[in-house]
């Protein structure tokens, strides 16, 4: 074993790669199923109202149509916490686009045709759908996501701010944004007697299992959710109504049912990032040392449920200031329910805070990298706890070095190349490093092969491959002797893929069970696997409860170089460079993809993405990829992601912090800070728009 190369840290190609490039990887509606029927949802065409009549005659007269479900005839559900999952149960309509009926037919085209023939009549009421900073309905929720304090205050912000010789007071806005994973939500559902078998595209098969069990009044062990491959999630594939609709339909028509949303339907029903209005006030001494900071964040939720985006938590553990305050206020509107999206809270929050830090740097005449270094705290400024590791300064320095920041002239709007103004910008980045309870099993065969099983889910991150590498190292064998299975509730229970917790949480259980297997082989069986093999199963509840108190965060520094056409206001990003400190990097290949993917999404947020709301119709004005632009490879000239070797002993056995989301945090601010440096125009309202940059507002 002495010469065995460790698998962790290697750039292993992903295990599922060959199947995916062949088109052989099966996604949730691609499994062959006998006698399958198809379901097509019918969205509400009113914003706020109540269904008074459901006329299904024309729909049912279509050849091949099996049923039309609505609140009048759908099987009854038991509420499962999230009102968005309690579908087709009540006549009330909370927003336009809410699913109010479901056509089921023997073919997809018949289901679609029938859905278009369902006639619904409604009583309607006036609606209120626009978030404003002085909306009369703004209130203080009891907590913000996931369960964080709504407001915090350390010291006395008002006094500290009043006394500060230098002040920045600015309001930033981010629009609604849609997750848009490449694969639309999709489910294949089969009732096998009193068992429910589900192929579903989601970020947490265990969550879907538990949800379906509650909704349909089943013990969880009678619900099996299989999630082998998922075409991305970015937050919107936590449990959604689509799988519930498919299960209702399958029960009603007593046949297996497939339901795949279209891209257009996704805009209405799978959640989106709330628009935010954020006021930042910073007080500092003339050298840029913060004395007071305040972040007031406003966002929206639906009438169905309270979803309180944690926008202002971004700065809580980040920069030092003795007097500090954060607040969140929420308005409940007649709109679709917002939901988790790509670094919820942290991402929009970072745009405001990192823009304001740039404004402070300009006001004080201090280099913005240096300004951040000057505000480095020794311990978490709100919690008072030590950091498990904190390498923001190292990221900033390494990034500045690699980017070529040293000779930067801070004067805005003076670098010209042809018809373009050039500029560079920087932002900090932070994201929580959490581990959640998971379990895993392992089996050692007498043939020297190992099978490791965990109901983790690989939504494209490379989790399957990373866990396989961790397992190989813990078992002390070459990875080709290890097989890993994920994505099935028949496997040991594990946490969902969200909040960048996957590898930290699942890797913990995998590492633990592999160590357990080694102990059994070495101590119980004298170093060799008996004929019947060796089996072990563990969970990490006790380990996670026993964690010492630390502030655990990944950090990063984002640098951007932009080019702005002086005559048209067109912005192009020539270069993005990020340096991250995120614990141990398990797989250099998949990690790089995660990080540059996050950075590209941050660029997309800065320049392209905007859910346009039409207050009259109470609906999105753009709901397809031609009118809602998402950045692709060609939108960026050069993108680089680097990481520091970080050995943090206070995390988890794999030593990882999670890299799924840190890449998007701060990116948009780095770009708008670069736009300021290029043009002298401060963009506080995303996305950067050509007309806004030139001042040609209507």
């Amino acid at each position, binding site marked *: 074993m002495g010469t065995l190369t460790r698998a962790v840290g290697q750039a292993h190609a992903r295990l599922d790669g060959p199947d995916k490039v062949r088109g052989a990887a099966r996604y949730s509606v691609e499994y062959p199923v006998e006698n399958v029927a198809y379901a097509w949802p019918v969205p509400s065409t009113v914003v706020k109202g109540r269904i008074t009549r459901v006329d299904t005659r024309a729909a049912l007269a279509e050849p091949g149509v099996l049923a039309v479900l609505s609140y009048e005839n759908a099987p009854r559900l038991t509420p499962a916490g999230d009102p968005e999952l309690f579908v087709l149960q009540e006549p009330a309509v909370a927003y336009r686009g809410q699913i109010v009926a479901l056509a089921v037919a023997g073919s997809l085209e018949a289901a*679609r045709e029938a859905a*278009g023939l369902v006639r619904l009549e409604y009583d309607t009421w006036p609606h209120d759908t626009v978030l404003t900073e002085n909306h009369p309905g703004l209130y203080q929720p009891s907590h913000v996501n996931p369960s964080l304090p709504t407001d915090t205050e350390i010291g006395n912000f008002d006094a500290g701010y009043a006394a500060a010789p230098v002040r920045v007071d600015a309001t930033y806005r981010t629009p609604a944004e849609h997750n848009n994973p490449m694969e639309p939500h999709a489910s294949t559902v089969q009732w096998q007697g009193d068992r429910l078998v589900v192929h579903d595209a989601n970020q947490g098969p265990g969550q879907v299992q538990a949800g379906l069990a509650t909704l349909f009044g089943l013990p969880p062990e009678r619900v099996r959710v299989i999630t082998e491959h998922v075409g991305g999630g970015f937050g919107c594939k936590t449990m959604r109504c689509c799988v519930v609709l498919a299960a209702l339909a399958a029960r009603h028509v007593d046949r297996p049912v497939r339901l795949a949303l279209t891209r*257009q339907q996704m805009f209405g029903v799978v959640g989106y990032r709330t628009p935010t209005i954020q006021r930042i006030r910073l007080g500092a001494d003339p050298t840029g040392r913060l004395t007071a900071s305040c972040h007031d964040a406003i966002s929206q939720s639906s009438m169905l449920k309270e979803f309180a985006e944690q926008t202002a938590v971004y700065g809580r553990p980040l920069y030092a200031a003795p007097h500090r305050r954060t607040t969140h206020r929420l308005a409940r509107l007649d709109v679709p329910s917002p939901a988790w999206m790509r670094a919820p809270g942290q991402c929009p929050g970072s745009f405001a805070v990192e823009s304001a830090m740039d404004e402070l740097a300009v006001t004080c005449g201090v280099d913005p990298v240096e300004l951040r270094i000057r505000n480095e705290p020794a311990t978490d400024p709100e919690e008072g706890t030590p950091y498990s590791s904190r390498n923001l300064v190292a990221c900033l320095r390494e990034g500045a070095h690699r980017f070529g920041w040293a000779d930067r002239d801070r004067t805005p709007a003076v670098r010209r190349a042809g018809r373009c103004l050039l500029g560079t910008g920087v932002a900090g980045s932070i994201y929580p490093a959490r581990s959640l309870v998971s379990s895993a099993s392992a089996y050692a065969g007498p043939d020297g092969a190992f099978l490791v099983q965990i109901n983790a889910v690989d939504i494209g991150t490379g989790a399957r491959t990373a866990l396989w590498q961790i397992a190989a190292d813990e078992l002390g064998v070459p990875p080709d002797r290890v097989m890993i299975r994920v994505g099935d509730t028949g496997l040991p229970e594990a946490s969902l893929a969200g909040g960048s917790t996957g590898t930290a949480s699942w890797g913990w259980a995998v590492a633990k069970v592999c160590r357990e297997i080694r102990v059994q082989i070495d101590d119980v069986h004298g170093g060799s696997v008996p004929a019947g093999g060796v089996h072990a199963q563990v969970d990490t509840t006790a380990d996670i409860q026993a964690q010492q108190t630390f502030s655990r965060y990944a950090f990063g520094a984002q640098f951007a170089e932009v080019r702005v056409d002086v*005559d*048209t*206001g*067109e912005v*192009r990003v020539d270069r993005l460079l990020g340096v991250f400190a995120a614990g141990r990097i398990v797989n250099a290949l998949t990690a790089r993809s995660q990080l540059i993917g996050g950075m590209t999404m941050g660029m997309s947020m800065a*320049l*392209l993405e*905007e859910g*346009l709301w039409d207050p009259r119709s109470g609906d999105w*004005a*753009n709901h*397809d990829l*031609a*009118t809602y*632009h998402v*950045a*692709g490879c*060609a*939108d960026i000239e050069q993108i680089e992601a680097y990481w520091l070797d970080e050995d943090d002993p206070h995390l988890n056995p794999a030593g990882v912090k999670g890299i799924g989301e840190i890449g998007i945090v701060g990116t948009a601010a780095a770009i708008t800070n670069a736009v300021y440096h290029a043009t002298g125009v401060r963009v506080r309202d995303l996305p950067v*728009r*050509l*007309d806004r940059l*030139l001042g*040609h*507002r*209507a």
Partner: protein
Amino acid sequence: MEFLQPSTWDDAMAAKAAQPEAVPIAGGTDVMVELNFDRRRPPALLDLTRVAELTQWGTDGPLLRVGAGVTSRRLIAELGGRLPGLAMASRTVGSPQIRNRGTVGGNLGSASPAGDAHPPLLASDALVELASVRGVRRVPVAEFFTGPKRSVLAPDELVAAFLVAPAGGPQQFAKVGTRNAMVIAVCSFALALHPAQRRVGTGIGSAAPTPRRATAAEDFLAAALPWDTRGRLPDSTAREFGALVAAAAAPIDDVRGTAAYRRHALSVLAGRTLRWAWEALCD
């Protein structure tokens, strides 16, 4: 829904005459989106991809006659030298997959104010050849568009071809958008210089209910350019030209940009394309 598949041009016109509500489809880049999104359910589709005549181009007297079924990709590869403005515009259309299928005939048939082919066709005085069992007529492209997604195309007519003179001078096309590709233009502009006749052609896209020419700008520039000396282009000429182009537009505020921005951007594109074209002429 019926699927009509004529294999000759005569059959295609006969089919359209018999069923005027049949929707012609070639590259499908507009029609299929409408069908996929369930925005329309026409009683019949009239597939034109098997009509060989439509995919051919050749000469008709002094003009090039390009079949309506010639794709953007073939325009670039086969006609880029003779129709440089149209080729530039074609290169900005969608992705390679879209350029492999999309046709100028389809662009004309859809008559979108944002159609990329329209400004260069306007700038080079193209004729649109419309055909039906009743006969053939050739309509100047400037008279072809009657409103957003509306044209003079009669219910029984099909777009057969467009006719245009090979470039007798420099041609340019430019558009403004939030990114370089896969984007609907905020506005676009095409310019053609005709030094032999001392004439100027223009075309404006995405900045009025229809694609349109900027005739006052054309007249001004034709008179103002130093055709004889081929001397330096005065900045004031470029500015005035830009202002007249902007004045010719009738833009609206929409999600891609304000009306004021569109006018401004058009003046910029007009000035820019003029400088490029004049430099090319004088080289």
